[in-house]
């Protein structure tokens, strides 16, 4: 799980152009939206693209995103649960 979390941090930084954020500065349990990384609605769409592009996971119901994208750890857990890591 830790390796997947680290990989995800790098992919999030690249996909969302977080040029001033370093992987070690991302707490895997901090909220991605609002506080924490302070991502916005366009970033949410980019995270959906990230899951599809890198892990072949399609989120069919947007409501699921609220749970999946709570933190880097919840993203990693969801990828694992889909057998895609």
């Amino acid at each position, binding site marked *: 799980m830790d390796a997947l979390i680290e990989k995800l941090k790098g992919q999030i930084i690249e996909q*969302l152009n*977080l*040029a001033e954020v370093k992987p070690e500065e991302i707490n895997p349990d901090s909220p991605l939206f609002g506080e924490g990384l302070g991502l916005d609605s*366009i970033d949410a769409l*980019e995270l959906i*693209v990230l899951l*599809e592009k890198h892990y072949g996971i399609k989120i069919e119901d947007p409501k699921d995103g609220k749970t999946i994208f709570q933190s880097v750890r919840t993203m990693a857990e969801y990828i694992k649960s889909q057998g895609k890591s």
Partner: protein
Amino acid sequence: MTHITSYAHIKHQRLSANGTLLFDGGSSGSLPGFLTDAYKALGMSYPKYHKMDALCKLGMLCMEAALKESELLTTYPADKIAIVLSNAASSLDTDRAHQASIQDKANYFPSPAVFVYTLPNIVIGEIAIKYKITGENAFFVSERFDAGLLLNYLEALFHGETQAAVCGWVEADGDAAEAFIFLVEKSNKNSNFKPLNQEAITELYNQ
């Protein structure tokens, strides 16, 4: 009396304000590299900048440079400051990037973060958000820099509620990038400033 009170240029990867060079990226470097290095050179701290397309980055850098010695933002109410920008290529640079992302049906991953920049007036929105400006705004697309067009529109605005304006030309088309922003104020009495007219705008643009 309405005056041009400050201006800034980005030409050939050189950023200057009021005739003073602020950053020289060297004309042989890449545009993305210049846009990042100039941001650092200006001491800006605005993480959202890195998510913007080249057009918006050019506008933001030029605006920041034009504001360096200006009191425009603290002198006028936010809703009395207008933003009027123009260019020739519209958002073509980002339109191409979006097209490339949907060209291959087998590798079809359009980026929402790219798509949101497929309109030229988004640069006005980004400037308005960063500097908390809420007045009138317009973006014109013309074949080349048109001082007369901008002057006509500014004069119409200043006949209304507008008391100050951010105006200019922001162009990004491949590596052909250029920006020119000038600030206009209705009530500034400093005699060193240029009165707003077509000759003054043209002269400053050609510097």
